[in-house]
Every structure is written in C-alpha cells, then in structure tokens.
C-alpha cells in the first residue's frame, strides 16, 4: 500500500463535500499530512481538504478517556435507552452499514441531518414517482435548463462548469447555446448561468412563498389549461406561457431543484408540480427532472437504509422491525415529543454540523475539528472519509457511487470501527 508519511501529489481525487462528487481534483500532501487542493478546487473542497490532521482524544463528560472507555460508556447509554435516535448520519456507505446494524440491535430510530429537504422528494416518490436523469445525461443532452428556486452553486459550486458549460458534448451540440432559466426565488445570484459567450440567463423571480402558485400555474399551462389570471406570484402569465412553450419545443429539457432550498410549508407539493409537469412533457418530447442533493452523505444514508430496512431514513426499529414515517421519526419530532430518550449524532465530513440542543444523553461521533457548545456525555472523534480512510459515497443523482480514498495517515478510527465495537459491547 501507499505510504502516507511522504509528501506527494495525488490526482483524480474524489471530493465528498458536496453531492456533485467531483473526482478530478489534484491534492497535495505534506509530510505532516496537511492537504491542499492544487487543481480543480472550489470553495467547498478547499475548506474540506485544508482542515489540518488532528487526532483529539475521546471524551466522557468532558474528560479525556481512552477509546475503549468511550465505547463502553456509549454502549451503556444505548443499552439503557428504550428508543434511541441515531441522527446526523454524515457518513459514507460502510459507516452507514454499521449504523443500520446497530440501529436494528438497539431498537433505534434513524434520521439524517438534511432530511427536512430530502423528505420532500421522498414523499413525491412515494406518492407519484418521477422521471429524472443523472449528471452525465445533463452534461451531454440538456438544451433548456430550468432551475427552480435556487442558485445551485452555493450548494454545488462546480455544477455549471461540470454539466452545463462543458465544451465537449456527445451529440454535436453547441453547448454555449444552452438556455438557462431561473424560475422563482428572490435575490438569487444568477451569474453562474451566464453563457461562455456572455449571454445572460432568463430570470423569473418570485418570493419563495409564491413558488407553489407559480409551479402550479406552469403545470396547468403545460396540461393545456387556460389561466384567467394575468400574473402569478408577480410573474406575468405571458412569461409562463412563453416558458411552457419553450419546454414543449426543447429536445431535452432539464428542470433542476434542490429540495433543501425549497424552504416553505408543504414544499413537497411544489416538487410534485415539477415532477408531474416533467411527466406531461414526456408525452411528446423529452424532459427530465434533476433533484440536487447528496451533501453530508445524505444519499448514503437513504440508499443503505432503503436496501437494509426497505425504507429511506426516518425509520425506526423500536418494534424489532423497521417502520417508516417521514413526520413521526424526524429528529425534531422525536426530540421535542420526548419519544427519544438518547441521541447518537454522526457528522464525519463536517465539523460545523453539530447536534441539535437537547437534554438527552448524547453521544457524538464527530469530525476531529468539531467544536461543541454543549459538551455531550460522550464525544468520539472519527476519521473523515476520503481523507483519513477509504469509503464509498453516492452522488446527488443517487445512481453513481464513487470510491473515496485515504489520503493521509490518521490515528482516528472510522465510524464503522467504533460502531461495531459499541454493538459488540451492547
């Protein structure tokens, strides 16, 4: 195996810090294990890789302890709990497999830190399904890209570079002629949507609370309904009619949204209006939805949970078999209702994603740089997948998974190792 004690440059490195999972980075390592993005970085990957290697000790009640003592204490907390919650779930596939095994044994509920957004999509899939595509299809086929309610790039910095303004595409398309429309939202930075030749995107802004009306109106127009209103949410119906017509004449339109950014009540119904109008378009031409997500290992949690339990997260093993409920088993609900009596929190990619405030006995499996306002009963620092140890990660489109490689030596255990030890101690 590679020796990590030497300085060097690694090519084709995969960055796990957003759902795009760009795998073309060059990363330099010095002898101390500091990493530096040398090529194809973005502000997110630079932040991610530049966190210095650290290996703080585990803590119990704020006191430094050995790992085995922290494991024993965590097992005790879990063993005493009647309905523990394992939340956060910022981990890769192998870590998530260990989470599932532990949850089954401990009768725990599972939720991911980004589920408030992701469940909007899940509810749509469970209710009506959808028609979507993956990133390489966008890169080679999109001729009209409609982006709903987000700038995309603050969540996924290299989106336009990677799949919209790419120079080469497979089907003789002049990619710089691609059309971009931002639909909905207010004060959105649309600069990334400017074409390489300087052509500006079309922007149809509206306040977030009007998004449901706007999407419903667009869907109605595409379904052939006549609208009596002349404007919806501040957007002229004539503009929406024009957009509807462009969608109908496009050869392969893509409608993108980031469920986490649609932050208003019952946004799942707005997602459903998007996905149902895509289905309508496909009666005559081709169109795909593009749900954007996958940050903090969101897809890992939901994929692994789905194949092992049958359900995505917000699933509980309290009755010895898995039960799923997008409302009932949310972190917020389980904490506020008192139905959970202990919490395990996982965030191995991101030190800033700290657990929600709670009086429950809490075990945190955190990034080495994590600073906690409230000292948990147990803190166990774990390695960062894709820097400190190997792993596997699912991308935003929930289809492509990529290997994450260890890039440096680390004294930190992986989440999987720690959870397996806890399960054995139960």
């Amino acid at each position, binding site marked *: 195996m590679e020796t990590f004690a030497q300085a060097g440059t690694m090519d084709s490195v995969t960055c796990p810090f957003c759902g795009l999972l760009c795998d073309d980075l060059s990363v330099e390592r010095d002898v101390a294990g500091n990493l530096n993005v040398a090529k194809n970085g973005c502000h997110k990957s630079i932040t991610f890789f530049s966190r210095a290697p650290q290996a703080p000790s585990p803590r119990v009640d704020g006191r430094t302890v050995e790992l085995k003592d922290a494991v024993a204490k965590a097992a005790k907390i879990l063993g005493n709990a009647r309905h523990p919650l394992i939340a956060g779930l910022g981990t890769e596939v192998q870590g998530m497999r260990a989470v599932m095994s532990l949850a089954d044994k401990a009768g725990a509920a599972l939720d991911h830190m980004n589920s408030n957004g992701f469940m909007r999509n899940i509810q749509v*899939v469970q209710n009506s399904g959808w028609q979507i595509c993956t990133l*390489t299809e966008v890169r080679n086929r999109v001729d009209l890209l409609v982006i709903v309610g987000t700038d995309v790039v603050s969540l996924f910095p290299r989106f336009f570079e990677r799949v919209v303004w790419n120079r080469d595409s497979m089907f003789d398309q002049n990619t710089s002629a691609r059309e971009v429309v931002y639909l909905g939202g207010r004060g959105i930075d649309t600069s990334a949507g400017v074409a390489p030749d300087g052509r500006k995107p079309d922007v149809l802004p509206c306040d977030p609370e009007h998004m449901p009306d706007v999407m419903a109106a667009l869907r109605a127009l595409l379904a052939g309904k006549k609208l009596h209103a002349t404007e919806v949410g501040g957007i002229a119906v004539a503009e929406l009619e024009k957009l509807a017509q462009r969608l109908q004449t496009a050869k392969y339109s893509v409608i993108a949204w980031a469920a986490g950014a649609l932050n208003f009540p019952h946004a799942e119904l707005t997602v459903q209006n998007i996905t149902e109008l895509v289905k309508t378009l496909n009666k005559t031409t081709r169109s795909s939805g593009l749900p954007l997500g996958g940050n903090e290992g969101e897809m890992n949690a939901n994929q692994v949970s789905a194949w092992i339990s049958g359900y995505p997260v917000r699933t509980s093993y309290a009755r010895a078999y898995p039960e799923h409920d997008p409302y009932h088993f949310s972190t917020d609900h389980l904490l506020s209702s008192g139905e959970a009596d202990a919490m395990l929190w996982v965030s191995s990619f991101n030190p800033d994603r700290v657990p929600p405030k709670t009086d429950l006995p809490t075990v945190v499996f955190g990034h080495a740089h994590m600073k906690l306002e409230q000292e948990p009963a147990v803190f166990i620092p774990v390695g960062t997948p894709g820097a400190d140890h190997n792993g596997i990660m699912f991308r935003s489109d929930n289809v492509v998974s990529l290997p994450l490689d260890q890039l440096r030596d680390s004294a930190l255990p992986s989440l999987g190792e720690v959870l397996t030890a806890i399960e054995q101690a139960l």
Partner: protein
Amino acid sequence: MLIKLTGGTVYDPAHGINGKVMDIYARDGRIVERPRDGEKIDQEYNLAGKVVMAGAIDMHTHIGGGKVNIARTLLPEDHRGDPVPHSDLCRAGCGHAVPSTLTTGYRYAEMGYTAGFEPAVLPMNARQAHLEMGDTPIIDKGGYAMLGSDDLLLRMMAANKDQNAINDYVAWTIHASQAMGIKVVNAGGISAFKFNQRMLDLDEQNAYYKVTPREVLQRLSRAVHELGVPHPLHVHGNNLGVPGNVETTLNTIAGVEGYPLHLTHIQFHSYGTEGDRKFSSGAARIAEAINKNKNISADVGQILFGQTVTASGDNMSQFRNAGHATPNKWVCMDIECDAGCGVVPFKYKDQNFVNALQWAIGLEIFLLVDDPWRIFLTTDHPNGAPFTSYPHLIKLLMDKTFRNEMLSRISPDAQTMSTLASIDREYSLYEIAIMTRAGAAKLVGLHDRGHLGAGAAADITVYTDNADREKMFAKPDYVFKDGELVVRDGSVVKVTWGATHVVKPEFDRGIEKEIAKYFDTYHTVKMDHVKVTDQHIADDGRGHVQVQACEGRREKTA
C-alpha cells in the same frame, strides 16, 4: 469437517443421476467421493426417503442495484404488509414484492436456493449492485453487466470499429462491473428513447447513431462467444409487452447467425395479435423455434396473480406501460449515457383478459419447450411475481390437475385463447432439478455449482417428498451452503455470506486508452472510478469474489 448425507434419493442431472438412493460426503465445504481410510465422520444426516438435490440457482432475479432500491423506496405500503422482525440469528427487514436485502437472502435460502444472479447491472451503477448483494446473506450471487444502449458501444459501432475492439470493450466492462456475463436490454432502444423514439424494431435505426438492434445483438453475441464467456448473451428483447412481438422475438432468434443467445423473460415477448382483442399467445411458435435452434435458451418470466412491481432497464417500454401502474406511481430514469431504468408497480389480475392470458402463455412455453436444459424457471423477480412464489410455480408445472383447476378460474375469454388445457405434460423431479440446478449452473457458467459430483461446492438441499409440490419446495428439511447447515425445517439456523461469482475474460488492455479518453471528454467520472474492486465486494469481511473459468462449459464428470 466431514459430513455424510446417508441414503437420500438423489437427483443430480449433471451426472445423469435420476432418483438413485446413495450417500454423499462433503469435506470442508466441498463434495468428496468418499472418506479417506479411517477418516472420522463428524456429522451424519439420515436422509432415508428424502429427496436430495444441489442447491437451487435463480439465474435471473432482480436483487441488487439502483432500480431495485428505487422499487423499495417507491412501495412503503407493500413493505408494511410484510414486516420482518429480527430474531436471535437474523436481522430485521421487510418482505413481499421487493424485500430488503437481508430478508432476500434468508428467504431464498429457506426455499432451498443457494445462488441468485442480478441480470441488469448497469456498469455505472455496478458498485451499488454489489453493495446490495453484499448485504444479501447466505446465497451466492453475481450479475450480468448491461450493454447495448451505452453511448460508447453505439459510438464504436457507428464508427464501424472492428470486432476485436468491441470484444475488448465488452471484456473491460465485465471486469469493471465484476460480472458473470453481458445482458442487452431493448438493444439500442434505451438510447433511442433519449432521442425521443418510442419504439425500436429489430431493423429500425437509432435516430442518432443509425445503428439497429439487430446489429447490436450480432456484435454483442459474437463478442461474448469469442471471449469464451460461458453465459451466452442475455437478451431482453425489443418491444417488450407489445402485441405482435412474437415476430420480433422470432427474428431475433434468426438474426444472430447461430451465436448462443439467452432470451430472458420470454413470456413477455411471445404475444400475437389474433382474436377479437388483438392479443393472443405466440407460445407455440416460440417453443417450436427454441426446440429447433440449439443455440437458443430462455427463461420464462412467469407472471402470477397479485401485487408486484416491475423494475427494468427498459425505460422505453416502462414509460409506455406507465399508464398501467398500480398503485398509480412510477419512476423512469435516463442514466449516465449508459442505460436507463423504469420502475412501475403492477397488479396482475386473474379476471383481466390480458393478465390471464400472460399467465397461460408462460405456462404454455414451459410445457412446450422439450429440452429442460434450455428453459429456466423464473418469474423475472419481482416483475412477474416475487421469487417467493416459486414453489407454487413448480406445482403448476408438476401437477396437471392443479394447473387445470387454476386455469378454470381465470378470465374465460383467456381460457378460450389458450391451449393450456390440452397439454398433458407434467415436469418430473429430474426435470425440475435440471431447470433449477444443473441447467442453470451450466448456463451461468458456474462450474462447481448445481451438481453433486466430487469437487463441487457442498450446496445441497434436502426435501421431504410430498405429492403437494408447493408444500415440498416451500420448506426444505435441510439446506447446506458450502457444507454448513444453514436451514433446517425451512428456517435459517446459521447465517453465512456467500461468494460473488465473476468471470475475467482476457483482453487487450490497450482499449483502456480509448475508454479513458471517452470518460475524460464526455463523462462526469473518471474511468478508473467506474471499476468495482474486489475490496468493494469483500469489505467488512463478509463477501468474497470467486472467479469462474472462461473456457466454455463444464464437462460432465460422471
């Protein structure tokens, strides 16, 4: 560790053994001829009066990969009807149409199955397929990598690349996907759908590449053959579910110039257009063609009545059929310039004319194909029915009285359109053992499975003979996996982790230059990251890769 299975009635068609009372020995997971002199027998099972076969092999079952997990995500209500609590031995999950991975492994083993093969591994999604199969306990597994609508193959064909280059790319794909073979789904059609074509007949051109399905089938069947991959090209035909597609299927058989071809879920491709409703059985013509063409094999993809979900790479057909979704929700995807998928829940009803006739067509094919070495027992799980209905299906094949009674209950119009009542054939235990063991192993290329000769893995299933074949096959007395007792009286008694079978055909690695350039130019991932490593399969110490030889078929050793 030496075990002795004493005095069972053995059905081992690979060695021509048809119901012979004999002893079987297994040492450390492998079958041996007899103990060494003075060797102590550690365990003995008295199997007098019991039926002994190799472990069953499902050569086409959707148990792992993106579309299976989409199907799970789509159907929480189905899972709620079949919750599976954990036990001291087994982990929790859910069952029915698309069971969770762990439940899938337990239930296959509890039915006497010791291997299952995922037929639609998208190279771009192969890692997920292996991850899911890696969480499927007890049984062995493997998959067929999907090609035929991937842009690289179509580009190579449009550029008229020579067959050697195609062969290298096919072999590279098998390695990268850790596969046992190659499957083609609606050849060229998934790509055509992305260009807004809604049908693609055998000689119709893809709008962009000007390549026809027939050409794709010819290129790929030849590649698989020339690479020495034991499993013939696994073909999901064009025009699935379309009345009249029997012509397409017959043309497909005629069109591959004698190269071996396996036609999968052929029931869905055996429809005529006769009768008032322009929907009729093409089973007799299909069976006749299979009987005549020795290069052709098929599995049936039997439908059985009830709720299930169809999960397929064929998004062109699935989109066309989405209006039949029950409950009314479905997912279609265009995937990575590689393939696609469509997931449509379905409820087959015995009083629905079309569904009832589909049921009869499947059974007609089973009964009209003469050679059980070339026809295989599948429901295309979960597309025709969940795999847990296999014992019922076996009873339909082995018991004419039962079959005719079931026939009398379906849509009367369908009854009059079917010749099923006039077919007297009943499958024998020997023939069932061929279809589900010896034949399946030979077809897939599992040289050391599906038989009970010396050197074979000790995957063995023991049943109590029962005139009610459904009861008999639902609950084996014993199942041994690699020599370990894993099931007793139809319940798991030990959880093991099976192997992942792969082939590694030789090829010229120079092809990687072209593939890498293609990925760098057009894709969003690097070529090297597409490759599934042994470690991805063996991680966490449960699975392992077993490489099966690429030198043609296993010879009979008896």
